[in-house]
């Protein structure tokens, strides 16, 4: 009920979410969640464990259907679309528990990300037409560029699951970027990273935004969220309890209460 007021007034909104409900049996995982993300923003999504952040991601990317309400992306509703169609519309994501194609090389992972923006079919592949060969070369070139972009070009031929943890996170971002997304949705990209790696990640995300991709970020690292995000949305028990610039949200008593103990951010979270 506290939700669904759109302050972005539509025009600049890339993603709009209104009255979103998601139920698992008797549990209301998301209740009347509403927000909107503007073009070029880095939008944070925070909240204690179990607040519904990943559920929101999964409904956004079509993995779960939502029970009521829904998303409008770049002016068109996303309701009823399959995950692959949503990726085709321009939303790419990473996963909280990294889901790379573990036994394939880093390069192959990113090349698979190009699938949705390319079109060679069975006959093209069998006949190796000139168009197919050109497309293949372009896929590989773009994939290598993306590996350079995220800083793991030296690992191109390494098997994905043998990469260090931080590199796997970067590879997942490169794979998502390969789909040419308008909105990049990252589910805890800094999880398990040390301070140096997190700093590098922050630079990478800032660069991605500067290059024109809007970012939706779930993150537990408060320092990262507060430093990076333009606005944040705070969820607790599936409800939106606050939204706004990090500094304001940080002082919101409801947010402090939600994070048990109420240590204002910067000192890490209790949940």
């Amino acid at each position, binding site marked *: 009920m506290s939700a669904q007021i759109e302050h972005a007034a539509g025009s600049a909104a890339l993603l709009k979410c209104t009255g979103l409900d998601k139920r698992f049996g008797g549990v209301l995982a998301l209740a009347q969640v509403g927000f909107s993300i503007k073009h070029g923003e880095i939008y944070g999504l925070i909240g204690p464990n179990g607040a519904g952040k990943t559920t929101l991601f999964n409904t956004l*990317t079509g*993995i779960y259907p939502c029970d009521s309400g829904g998303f409008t992306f770049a002016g068109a509703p996303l309701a009823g679309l*399959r*995950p*692959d*169609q949503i*990726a*085709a519309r321009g939303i*790419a*994501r990473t*996963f909280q528990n990294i*889901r*790379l*194609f*573990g*036994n*394939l090389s880093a390069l*192959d992972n990113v*090349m*698979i*990300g*190009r*699938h*949705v*923006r*390319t*079109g*060679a*079919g*069975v006959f*093209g*592949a*069998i006949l*190796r037409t000139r168009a*197919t060969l050109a*497309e*293949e070369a372009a*896929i590989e070139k773009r994939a290598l560029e993306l590996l350079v972009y995220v800083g793991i070009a030296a690992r191109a031929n390494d*098997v994905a*699951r043998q990469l260090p943890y931080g590199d796997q996170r970067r590879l997942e971002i490169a*794979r*998502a970027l*390969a*789909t040419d997304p308008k909105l990049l949705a990252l589910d805890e990209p800094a999880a398990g990273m040390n301070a140096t790696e997190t700093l590098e990640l922050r630079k990478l995300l800032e660069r991605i935004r500067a290059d024109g991709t809007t970012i939706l970020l779930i993150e537990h690292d408060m320092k990262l969220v507060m430093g990076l995000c333009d606005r944040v949305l705070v969820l607790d028990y599936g409800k939106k309890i606050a939204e706004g610039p990090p500094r304001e949200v940080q002082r919101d008593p409801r947010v402090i209460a939600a994070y048990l103990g109420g240590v204002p951010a910067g000192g890490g979270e209790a949940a």
Partner: protein
Amino acid sequence: MNLSAHPRAKWFGLALIALALIGLPFALASVGTAWVRIGNLAILFVFLSLGLNIVVGFAGLLDLGYVAFYAVGAYTYALLASPHFNLHLPFWVILPIGALVACAFGVLLGAPTLKLRGDYLAIVTLGFGEIVRIFLNNLSQPVNITNGPQGISRIDPFSFGSFSFSKNETIFGLMFSGPIKYYYILLAILLLAIVVNLRLQHSRIGRAWEAIREDETAARAMGIDTTRIKLLAFAMGASFGGIAGGMFAAIQGFISPESFVLVESIMVLSMVVLGGMGNIWGVVLGAVLLSFVPELLRYTVEPVQRYLFGRTFIEPEVIRMLLFGLALVLMMLYRPAGLLPSAVRKRELTKAAE
């Protein structure tokens, strides 16, 4: 791999292999014409294994009813080129038709099973194989389509005009028997199939299959239409089965539902697994081995026992199954990814041991 650094050595090797393949039927014929036929059946099994490899090896969908597509291809050929309906279309027209019909059956099987994974998919495909066989057995009434358990006989051989692949011929003083002529055309079609497989594997579609095999959820999130791509795997695999079936019907001249039992599906799957799922050359090796070794046993077990003991204690068939079981156990223990595993599959199967 390092061969590519020595192009000359590579070409020399290829030339040697080509020579061996060209000379092989004559070497086999000198042992006995039966061996040329065995060689031809081996080519068919390689063909079938390559098709099943697309479904099982590339896309990771366990299919235990693959022989159904083989049957569909064989019956398509038999019905269009035999006195049964008095149709006699040329083989180069029927083989593509057989591929298309089998492809349609592939989609028919694929569509309802898309949501199933692993064991469940295996059980449904197994059932599908049996359904097709039972249909073939019973579609003799009220309208006689398949001629039931009696099967269809006097199927036309391959022929170009008056050049028939079933007749003997002497060219340049060399005797080309029917099976030898078949050998060359089967080999040519097989080489084509291998090229098709290699190209598919290293393509956008091949990568999408790999992605689905590795992690279906992530594949979907990356924009891969898993429904379409899985159906494509079923359809491609089935087409290969259909073509192999057509060739089988032509060579044998007679087919009946008995040729398309579950054991055949399992045999083809064993070839794929033995050789190395996902690796085209491994699959070829697996199919050749499992085609020839049982025949070798058939020709050696009895004579050896007679020579040693004066009579036969163990039938070759028993020894065959015994060795087959032993080979399976040894493979699972020592080379779970196959004799020539694909690099990717090997990593998958050694994951647990890490």
